[in-house]
């Protein structure tokens, strides 16, 4: 009976989470209760928990994770200084005369700027506030408008540099080390956040292209669903460049310096945040007061992320202490069907967990448990990371529980029916599943670029 306690603990935590107490403390608190009962009953060896201070100090000392507050600061600065808004405005004026032009602009701006925040809720809310009223005003069908915004909002987490990928990259690198240690590999390889960024690039761009193709196709077949702008307004090429170039340059520089290996993600994030601050300053949008507000927002999001990391650390210590690792391992071993089956089961589990857990929680709770097992079976860590990211993104879009849908519902006007949102995201879910299938068939799409860059260095 005792060997099933890890699964019971997992089920218990899912129930507890649904009550709505903050995730970080629910995770840790439930685990503590299980540990407490276990210690009294003699099922649980308290020495497992004594590793906690060292684990916490490991988090404090983790230089890679320092990229998180810096990327968040960069995103907050870009958002608060209305750079994203201006970009969307210029783009839509340029493309608005074409049917579907506004939709295309939303996707492009979302893909570009959402990347820096990469937290599903924040991105969907921002994009929703920014573009939904305009789209509706211009006669876009509510389902088309909301579907585009939800899908684009979740896109941010897979387009680098997103903090979701930073967290996933860090977790996967630990998992990969463990897996190789277990297999007694002589010269263990490493996987870094930069590798994951590179791996995400091709699939991310492919997804954007698929979104764009779909939008253009829909505009062509059903122009009434996304009408063109009636009053035409010339956009001077100068003003377009002025609003387009600086943020694009900033993102490209940050990303580029990581990809060619000139800077670590942390360094690039710091320079990117400084760039965003200077950009805001140049636009006269940065006062001391605004800087303080940006600092406060960043503080809030950063602490939120790290508390989940700490809560998940407590949870996984207790999970291990109850032999959860061995349990999962033996479940996989007894399942049969080999690596393919194991990956499929994990993907389905993550998809379902995506209904109640955000990207961060899944990265910190689920990946450390299943990651080493899958990687020890010979799964490529970069491919696995990208599959998880796209899978989660799909999960966040899927009615009725998808996160993105809730967040957009929160900012959408009453006139938009929930059914419209559900109908709107359906085609994008198909595209996502298509992408997952493509990536499963051709893993090279994710792994070739990092491998190539590595061979150059």
């Amino acid at each position, binding site marked *: 009976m005792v060997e099933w306690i890890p699964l019971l603990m997992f089920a218990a935590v899912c129930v507890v989470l649904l009550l709505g107490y903050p995730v970080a403390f629910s995770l840790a608190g439930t685990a503590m209760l299980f540990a407490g009962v276990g210690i009294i009953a003699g099922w649980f060896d308290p020495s497992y928990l004594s590793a906690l201070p060292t684990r916490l100090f490991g988090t404090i000392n983790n230089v890679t994770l320092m990229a998180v507050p810096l990327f968040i600061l960069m995103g907050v600065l870009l958002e608060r200084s209305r750079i994203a808004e201006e970009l969307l405005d210029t783009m839509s004026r340029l493309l608005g005369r074409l049917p579907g032009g506004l939709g295309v602009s939303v996707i492009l701006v979302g893909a570009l700027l959402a990347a820096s925040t990469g937290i599903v809720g924040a991105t969907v809310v921002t994009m929703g506030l920014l573009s939904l009223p305009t789209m509706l005003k211009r006669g876009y069908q509510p389902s088309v408008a909301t579907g585009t915004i939800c899908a684009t909002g979740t896109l941010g987490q897979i387009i680098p540099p997103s903090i979701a990928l930073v967290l996933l990259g860090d977790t996967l690198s630990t998992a990969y080390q463990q897996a190789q240690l277990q297999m007694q590999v002589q010269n263990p390889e490493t996987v870094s956040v930069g590798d994951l960024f590179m791996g995400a690039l091709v699939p991310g761009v492919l997804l954007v292209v698929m979104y764009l193709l779909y939008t253009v196709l829909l505009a062509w077949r059903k122009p009434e669903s996304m009408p063109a702008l009636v009053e035409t307004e010339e956009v001077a090429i100068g003003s377009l460049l002025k609003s387009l170039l600086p943020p694009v340059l900033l993102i490209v520089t940050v990303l580029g310096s990581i990809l060619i290996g000139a800077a670590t993600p942390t360094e690039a994030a710091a320079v990117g945040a400084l760039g965003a601050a200077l950009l805001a300053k140049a636009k006269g949008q940065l006062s001391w007061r605004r800087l303080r507000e940006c600092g406060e927002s960043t503080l809030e999001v*950063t602490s939120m992320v790290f508390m989940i990391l700490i809560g998940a650390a407590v949870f996984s210590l207790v999970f291990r202490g109850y032999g959860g690792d061995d349990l999962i391992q033996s479940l996989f071993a007894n399942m049969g069907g080999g690596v393919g089956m194991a990956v499929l089961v994990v993907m389905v589990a993550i998809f379902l967990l995506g209904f109640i857990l955000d990207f961060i929680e899944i990265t910190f709770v689920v990946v450390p448990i299943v990651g080493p097992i899958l990687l020890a079976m010979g799964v490529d860590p970069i491919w696995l990371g990208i599959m998880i990211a796209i899978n989660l993104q799909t999960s966040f879009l899927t009615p009725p529980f998808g996160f993105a849908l809730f967040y957009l519902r929160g900012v959408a006007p009453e006139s938009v029916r929930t059914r419209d949102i559900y109908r709107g995201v359906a085609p994008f879910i198909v595209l996502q599943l298509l992408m997952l299938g493509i990536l499963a068939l051709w893993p090279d799409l994710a792994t070739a670029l990092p491998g190539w860059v590595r061979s150059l260095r």
Partner: protein
Amino acid sequence: MRIITALSARLDAYSESTGRLLAWLLPLLMLNTCAVVFMRYGLEQGSTFMQELSLYLHATVFMLGAAYTLKRDGHVRVDILYRQFSPRAQAWVNALGTLIFLFPLCGYIILISWDFVSYAWLIRESSGEPGGIPAVFLLKTLIPLMAVNLALQGLAEFLRSLATLLGYQAEVAVGVAADNDGQEGAL
């Protein structure tokens, strides 16, 4: 009852002011890290001290910011059901959650990190790197400090929920309104 609301207001104010101070560390973190980058690539010089300073700033921010985030209700919740609950039901969740999850967690972190931290103080643990900041014992102290801060703000949340459950919504509502005003003023 007045004592309860006064106490939770006092605790709120404490968390709020730590948050405001900590917020300024983020631009500092950005500038310091940029300076490290500039020195490395521009001047081809590395400064262990400055690299570690970034680490200290970062750690201070997320460890001590946890209480402020709790006060701002910034810790993410699974709110599929929670948001449909009545204020009373939400108060139940928060009161019980604080009592069953948060307090034991904080207590346990303080308890288990005690030896870890006091040993670091005893030997005045310094950086492992030459030229690093000789204050690793302070860095380690962040662990129990985080727990203390969180517990204090947790107490404020608990008292507030208790007041709601005991039927003092009016006073609480006034408190919330004042709080919102404060936030709007800040924006």
